């Protein structure tokens, strides 16, 4: 190899030449192959489109998005925005998208927390804890998610009626109508306080950044947490107090055959959440375990030798290295959870799949209905991918 590399003739760029029209020329072959494959694919697609157009004509189905502005007349049990069956299909589908996001966002957060806990438990020195975590992971991963959802839904439906509801703590009721939690009566002041919280977090992040920049300049460490705590906690409390500190509890109570007031978590949402979280957490636990195991023991020992405290070692030495192994597979788990939330249709939680399905059954607009499902999921998947890729690039190892 070294002999030929030294040969000056080989160091020169190969002479440029045109494509010979011969089967022996690799580039000619590759162009022919590509034309052939693309031709076949285009041919199949054209055939399918022509058939579809013909079939739609025969069945007198008008394609188009006109149906979106028609009255839906489809009841939706739970919705984040005001909705009634007299609203349009577009609004019904919007409700479905929001319901999908509601389960996906909450599910991702809870599954990450539970999965991390189980993953650490799996590595525990306590034999019993580690075995129980291992058994949980193995059992949950070897059962279909749909079966687990149906199982949880069957359990929730087997709970007693509201009159005999389980009542573990004051204000909390668990019955076959779902979980009832105490809540506060939401007022404008609370919305402003929430806005203050977001502003406070943003401000705290900026303050921490400038403090770090100053430390880099003069080497003086600065205490960040008092100001950050003031911004994050103080700002919303001040706004809330400034607006008269409204506080009205909303405690659920049994009236007649059902509960009134309070925050309701429907059995459908609850079963879906338990199922998705339990299932995804088992996969996340294995990812977290692999991530922590991937950090060499010498890293801990070296950091201890430098005199760092345990918490700091975890935060500044081990976690940044473990995250590099954890984040890419975690991204696909988040994507899986979001896509798996489409199983909601089996237990009657009205997410985008369920509402699109009803829409296409009512209107006969099969192509549009399925296109909506696909576009919504592709958008969500792409957003999660982009965000996680950005985060992954941020924590990636910086090499020279």
């Amino acid at each position, binding site marked *: 190899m070294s002999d030929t590399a030294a040969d000056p003739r080989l160091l020169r760029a190969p002479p440029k030449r045109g494509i010979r029209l011969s089967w022996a020329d690799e580039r000619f072959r590759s162009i022919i192959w590509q034309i052939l494959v693309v031709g076949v694919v285009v041919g199949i697609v054209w055939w399918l489109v022509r058939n579809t157009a013909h*079939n*739609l004509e025969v069945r007198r189905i008008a394609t188009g998005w006109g149906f979106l502005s028609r009255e839906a007349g489809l009841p939706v049990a739970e919705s984040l925005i005001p909705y009634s069956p007299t609203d349009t299909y577009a609004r019904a589908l919007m409700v479905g998208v929001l319901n999908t996001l509601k389960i996906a966002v909450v599910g991702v957060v809870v599954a990450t927390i539970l999965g991390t806990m189980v993953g650490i438990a799996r590595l525990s020195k306590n034999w*019993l804890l580690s075995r129980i975590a291992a058994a949980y992971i193995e059992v949950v991963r070897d*059962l*279909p998610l749909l079966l687990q959802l149906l199982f949880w839904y069957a*359990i929730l439906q*087997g709970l007693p009626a509201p009159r005999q509801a389980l009542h573990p703590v004051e204000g909390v009721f668990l019955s076959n109508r779902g979980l009832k939690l105490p809540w506060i009566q939401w007022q404008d002041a609370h919305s402003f306080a929430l806005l203050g919280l977001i502003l406070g977090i943003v401000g705290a992040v900026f303050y921490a950044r400038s403090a770090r920049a100053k430390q880099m300049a003069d080497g003086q460490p600065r205490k960040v947490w008092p100001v950050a705590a003031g911004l994050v906690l103080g700002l919303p409390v001040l706004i809330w107090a400034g607006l008269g500190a409204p506080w009205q509890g909303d405690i659920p109570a049994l009236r007649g055959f059902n509960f009134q007031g309070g925050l309701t978590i429907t059995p459908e949402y609850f079963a879906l959440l338990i199922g998705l979280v339990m299932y995804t957490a088992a996969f996340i636990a294995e990812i977290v375990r692999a991530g922590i195991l991937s950090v060499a023991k010498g890293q801990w020992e070296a950091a201890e030798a430098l005199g760092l405290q345990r918490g700091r070692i975890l935060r500044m030495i081990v976690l940044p290295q473990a995250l590099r192994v954890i984040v890419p597979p975690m991204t696909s788990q988040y994507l899986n959870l979001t896509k798996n939330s489409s199983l909601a249709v089996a237990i009657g939680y009205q997410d985008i799949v369920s509402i699109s399905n009803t829409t296409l059954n009512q209107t006969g607009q099969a*192509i549009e209905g399925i296109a909506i499902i696909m576009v919504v999921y592709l958008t969500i998947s792409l957003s999660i991918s982009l965000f996680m890729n950005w985060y992954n690039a941020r924590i990636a190892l910086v090499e020279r």
Partner: protein
Amino acid sequence: MAEITAEATAPRPAQDAELGHRRPPLLAVGPLAWAKANLFSSWISTAVTLALGYLLVRWTMGFIDWAFINAIWSVPVTPQGAQTQACRALGGTGACWAVVTEKHRFILFGTYPYEEHWRPAICVLLFIGLYIVSAMRRFWRPALALIWLATLAVIGVLMWGGMLGLSYVPQERWGGLVITLILATFGIALAFPLSILVALGRRSSMPAIKTLCVLYVELIRGVPLISLLFMASVMFPLFLPEGMNIDKLLRAQIAIILFAAAYLAEVVRAGLQALPRGQYEAADALGLTYWQKTGFIILPQALRLVIPPLVNTFIGFFKDTSLVLIIGIFDLLTAGKTAIVEPAWQGFGIEIYVTVGLIYFVFCFAMSRYSQGLEAELNRHRVR
């Protein structure tokens, strides 16, 4: 100083003699020492062990009470239907396994003619035999493909009948476990070759082919399987020319194959990427053509690298076949869910789901154990 050294190194005959017979301290070796190190190493560990131990014992006792002691295994069946009052009287304190006793044939074989149940039963055994043969490394050779073809042909003949004196059974009457196994086996068997082609295409230097493969993989992986199944059940009939129709099971099967191939392609691609470049260059240097290089040098090594993740993906698809419930195909889970639609048996979902879950678990657990064993075996040469 000298005195101390002398004392320390001086032989102590009396003690040495005694040491030979003395047992080590109770807490240094043996089960007690193990318990101290693994269960009670600190006060936190002790607290965790005690709390978990308490919960474990309580829940196990509760489960044994529910599943065995208070359980009812059969109920009288009169011409008016099953008499489930005894089960309902339990009020959830005991399992009503009677629903499984009564419905197990239905869960396993669906609506297949009752007196012909031996045919799907043999098919299930054939499938299991096929898995076992494929799992043995001794049979990893081209002849395995022939074994697969032959077995699948025999299964087709047994299920459909209409020849060799077997009565004809239309596909609409198939159901239960055998449908799950058909969807999973045919899905994997056909998706795997397709996925290899797609993975090769994605690594190809031809821009048009690469773009097509990337589009296919990313589009399929970006949407849930359910939307593909809906597409197969609702949209597919629109795609075909008038008069031409494909039955529902086959359409779902095509959706599963397309879905599985996209995921498997990514696994195969990982193997292709993990192979050192020298292998490609060496094959080129020998003057092998693309297909010779791929068939003899690249794929045998690349596929071997990804066998464990491949098996994990297979487990995933085995579980995912249960999604056909949503478009109303009669697989194992659908059969279980349908078994409790009858008013007499309504409300006994937990018993059914535990039973069906056990069947899924046996298959997936076996595959997962096999994959772990294989991983250890294939990595043995790397561990010194």
